[in-house]
């Protein structure tokens, strides 16, 4: 794996990989959207079940993105691979975007189902906190000027965050059972019947690939920018 950690090698490989990745993502989106709109309405949720096809994948990528970011941070911190730092840095805004999308689609689903846009329900609440974790990470990166220091500090924060995430999740779940004694919603949210699994699955694949496609593009941008800075520095010296 670390054979590809050389930026030059990475640029070559990602350049060859990207068109295929982009095309696959587009095809998956087309298929997923078609299935999302041709699926029958759910007997309980009606047509709002279609929101699930974009809500669940966004939520999945939001969580996976944080895990990915933490893993890249760990590699960056332990093995000192600059490419891992770049990956972690560029994963954060994407993760934040998908977290925001999960929150918005979740609350649009909640309005007709729960009767309110915002319910302090376990999952919505932990996604709000996840958004804060992402924003803090991005802000820390931007606040520290020295690139090496910023990468290390952000990596430590990402690792602290990933250790805390299950605890936060648990505490929030615990808290919702404490405060809503007579829950009218089934715990764990609505169950999804088999007809809906296909669109859900394909949309999840599309979202995941989209995340990695954009990540590669953004990593390439960052590498070019770093090369530019190095060149400018060399020219001035």
């Amino acid at each position, binding site marked *: 794996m670390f054979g590809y950690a050389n930026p030059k090698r990475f640029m070559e490989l990602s350049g060859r990989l990207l068109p295929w990745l982009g095309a696959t993502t587009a095809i998956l989106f087309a298929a997923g959207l078609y299935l999302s*709109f041709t699926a029958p*309405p759910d007997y309980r949720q*009606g*047509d*709002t079940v*279609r*929101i699930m096809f*974009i*809500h669940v994948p*966004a939520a999945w990528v939001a969580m996976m993105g944080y895990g990915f970011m933490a893993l890249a941070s760990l590699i960056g911190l332990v093995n000192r691979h600059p490419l891992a730092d770049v990956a972690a840095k560029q994963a954060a805004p*994407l993760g934040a*975007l998908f977290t*925001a*999308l999960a929150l*918005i*689609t979740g609350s*649009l*689903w909640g*309005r*007709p189902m729960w009767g309110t846009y915002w319910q302090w329900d376990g999952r919505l609440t932990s996604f709000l906190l996840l958004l804060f974790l992402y924003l803090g990470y991005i802000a820390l990166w931007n606040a520290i000027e020295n690139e090496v220091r910023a990468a290390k500090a952000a990596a430590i924060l990402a690792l602290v965050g990933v250790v805390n995430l299950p605890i936060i999740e648990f505490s929030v779940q615990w808290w919702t059972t404490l405060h809503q004694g007579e829950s009218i919603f089934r715990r764990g949210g609505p169950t999804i019947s088999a007809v809906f699994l296909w669109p859900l699955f394909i949309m999840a694949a599309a979202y995941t690939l*989209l995340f990695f496609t*954009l990540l590669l*593009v*953004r990593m*390439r*941008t960052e590498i*070019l*920018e770093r*090369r*530019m800075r190095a*060149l*400018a520095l*060399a*020219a001035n010296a």
Partner: protein
Amino acid sequence: MAAFFVMGKYAAFVWPAYGISALGIVASVALSLRAYRRAKTRLAALERTVK
């Protein structure tokens, strides 16, 4: 066809959810690609001046 756009009685929730998601995704794709192209041309220009 009309029934499709009405989405049961949930058009007011289903379409905004898809709209906002599409907006977010299209915007992030466009911004990422634009930043990439810009970095590429700027680096090329810089390499020319340095040499």
